[in-house]
């Protein structure tokens, strides 16, 4: 361990005896206290977006993992994967190198009951035509049902669901109970606090094939009687209203938040400055949204949503944005390349953050003040399976390995997804939920990079060298996800203290050194939003590379990086936000590992099987620079305050 890494590591992770300014979280459940409680908080790595065979699409693709299997896998046990032999033996298996700290099974609320009916002989509706089609032609049913339930503006249940869908709603109660029971069974309520599960579901609105999905996550075991799906509430506003009625206002200790994902596939609809009815946002609706939606999934299996491809200088683009981008902007056009077009405005996180500043100036409330996490969106139940070298595939978007062991485990344009990291005092539901709520969270594209990020007006320039880095960070400023307090009269600019540690990896597979830390600033100028990317630590020109023929890494990098940076362009009259991006040295993309393992020889094109031809497409990325994105820190002129919610 280098001297710098040691000092940065001590600064980031060493517990301090007291924490003067961070408010303790409320406890909403009875459980044994965690033996390890760190008032300066520790990073917990997890996956907030996991599907199992309870989700209709995963089920149609032949996935058999249950929520219990997903939690077992997250805790380090092996998971059997498609295809299955006739006797049910899986022909593939995968296992995490390192267990997760937490995971959330978020099966689609839509068709929860229908899936159960179609797969359970004897239930009323089991012999319906649609169920027969599902069992005979699962993928045909997958598209048919997508076209009726998910991708339309006014979804209608199938007739076999009975009067007002009652039969299917009733059938949904059973899997919903099993989801809760699985979360409870794998939640470590002992003092060891090894693993935390949450109860959740995914609301999967897809009007016009524009993805406006939300993961719904509950703080504790008190949850509504049934999940609210896109069929019952076909707008996000309806979902939030129902969550307020069924949970927040129920007076039974229920608490909830929602996390949108895939703005890259939303057609700009996640960051629209209007309601689903086309009305301008008002302050009340904006407050509701901001309270319920503190986080956003910046990256997952179906692509990165941070920023768009394009030249630097416009909002939402820089040279490092060429990372895990999907070539299409709507999932229903995946197989129609002649209809591919760049995602419309508002399809990326930076554009949403910029729109938030604009709306804040207009309404006094920011509807898009969200922190960032990443997750997998696995449909195999493989929570946290993010390692590029042995990516098992996540079975989304019509892929099937149900029939034969695939040469390529997933579609080339997809990726293993990322992880959510929460800074919390202990690994228990209340502490982790509080971290999500105050946005003290960040996302990584897979590696377990540790990042701390504070902003304040009085951070000393030598903060990185001080052992009380974290305590001072909290005491003199705000952590990631916070809002800067009003500046003192004498303050020229806020100081940002950012420190990162590389992922150490495992003995068999060491992590990759860091290359640099950047700070992305977005501000609202008189003529509209602006952005700029600052290099604040590391060496963008370190010459590190990877050989795509062998995946051998070359060149040096950093074990740890730390910097105290003052914004040279700060204007106290301009609303602004900043987030940090920590970038690793280049490594092989998962597809490159597959191409090497399959012995693809592009010099002999005739020898390359059809599925592996993309290995030889020079337009496809062979390497990636894995990264972490922190939640932003905001500055609001005149009315700034420290935000804990």
């Amino acid at each position, binding site marked *: 361990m280098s001297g710098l890494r040691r000092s940065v590591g001590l600064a980031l992770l060493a517990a301090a005896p007291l924490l003067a300014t961070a408010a303790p979280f409320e406890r909403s459940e009875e459980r044994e206290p965690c033996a390890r409680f760190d008032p300066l908080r520790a990073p917990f790595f997890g996956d907030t977006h996991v599907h199992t065979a309870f989700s209709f699409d995963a089920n149609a693709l032949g996935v058999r993992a249950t929520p219990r299997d997903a939690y077992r896998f997250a805790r380090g046990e092996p998971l059997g994967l498609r295809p299955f032999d006739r006797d049910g033996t899986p022909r593939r298996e995968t296992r995490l190198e390192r267990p997760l700290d937490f995971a959330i099974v978020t099966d689609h609320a839509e068709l929860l009951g229908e899936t159960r009916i179609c797969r359970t002989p004897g239930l009323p509706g089991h012999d319906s035509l649609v169920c027969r089609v599902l069992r005979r*032609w699962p993928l045909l049913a997958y*598209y*048919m049902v997508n*076209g*009726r339930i998910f991708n*339309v503006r006014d979804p209608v249940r199938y007739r076999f669901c009975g009067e007002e869908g009652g039969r299917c709603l009733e059938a949904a109660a059973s899997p919903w109970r099993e989801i809760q029971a699985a979360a409870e069974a794998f939640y470590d309520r002992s003092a060891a606090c090894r693993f935390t599960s949450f109860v959740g579901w995914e609301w999967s609105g897809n009007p016009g094939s524009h993805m406006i999905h939300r993961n719904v996550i509950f703080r504790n075991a008190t949850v509504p009687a049934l999940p609210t799906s896109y069929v019952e509430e076909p707008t996000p506003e309806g979902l939030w209203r129902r969550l307020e009625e069924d949970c927040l206002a129920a007076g039974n200790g229920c608490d909830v938040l929602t996390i949108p994902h895939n703005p890259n596939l939303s057609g700009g609809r996640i960051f629209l400055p209007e309601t689903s009815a086309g009305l301008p946002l008002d302050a009340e609706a904006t407050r509701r949204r901001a309270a319920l939606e503190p986080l956003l999934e910046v990256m997952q299996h179906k692509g990165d949503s941070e920023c768009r491809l394009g030249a630097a200088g416009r909002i939402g683009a820089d040279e490092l944005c060429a990372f895990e981008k999907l070539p299409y902007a709507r999932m229903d056009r995946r*197989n129609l390349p002649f209809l591919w077009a760049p995602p419309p405005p508002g399809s990326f996180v930076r554009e949403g953050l910029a729109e938030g500043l604009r709306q804040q100036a207009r309404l006094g409330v920011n509807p898009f003040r969200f922190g960032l996490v990443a997750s997998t969106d696995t449909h195999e139940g493989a929570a946290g399976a993010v390692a590029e070298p042995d990516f098992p595939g996540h079975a989304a978007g*019509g892929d*099937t390995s*149900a029939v034969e062991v695939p040469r390529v485990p997933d579609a080339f344009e997809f990726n293993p997804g990322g992880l959510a990291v929460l800074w919390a005092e202990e690994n228990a539901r209340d502490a982790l939920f509080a971290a999500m709520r105050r946005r003290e969270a960040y996302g990584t594209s897979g590696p377990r990079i540790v990042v701390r990020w504070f902003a304040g007006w009085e951070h000393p320039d030598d903060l990185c060298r001080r052992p009380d880095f974290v305590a001072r960070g909290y005491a003199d400023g705000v952590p990631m996800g916070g809002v800067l307090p009003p500046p003192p009269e004498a303050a020229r600019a806020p100081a940002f203290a950012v420190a990162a540690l590389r992922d150490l990896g495992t003995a068999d597979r060491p992590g990759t050194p860091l290359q640099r830390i950047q700070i992305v600033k977005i501000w609202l100028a008189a003529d509209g939003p602006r952005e700029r990317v600052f290099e604040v630590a590391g060496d963008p020109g370190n010459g590190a590379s990877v050989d795509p023929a062998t995946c051998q890494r070359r060149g040096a990098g950093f074990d740890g990086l730390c910097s105290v940076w003052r914004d040279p362009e700060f204007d106290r009259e301009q609303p602004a936000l900043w987030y940090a991006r920590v970038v690793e040295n280049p490594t092989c993309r998962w597809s490159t590992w597959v191409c090497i393992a399959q012995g693809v020889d592009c010099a002999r094109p005739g020898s390359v099987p059809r599925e592996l031809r993309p290995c030889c497409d020079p337009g496809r990325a062979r390497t990636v620079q894995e990264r972490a994105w922190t939640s932003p820190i905001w500055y609001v002129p005149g009315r700034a305050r420290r935000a804990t919610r």
Partner: protein
Amino acid sequence: MSERASRRILWVAFAATVPLPFFLVETGWVPAVRLLLLAGVHGAVIAVEGTQGTVAIAAALLLAQAALGLAALWVLAWGLAQGLSRGSPRRAAAATWAVVALALFVTTAFDLYRTPFRTPALRGNLLVLLE
């Protein structure tokens, strides 16, 4: 065997064996009867569940592809039948059945089909298709 009978037999055989391009979200190569079968499934769903969603468009696309394919196969069968029936009726019958047998043999022996709704489309022969 008359030219008309030969044409009909060939047309049915081609409809059951000749791989035609398929497109409905997925792409593939399947015989016309498979297209008709899938169109029939969609039709049945429409009859039971109504036209809500994209099921009617899908059924129309399948029917259109099947109709185009069957028309092309009819032209092929017509041309071939004309050629085969230039000799005696017995020879025409033998030649017709030989073509049918050849079509069945080739599509059974080789993986000519790419069945839709399995991505990447599963390669298979006639027996796989009938599974």
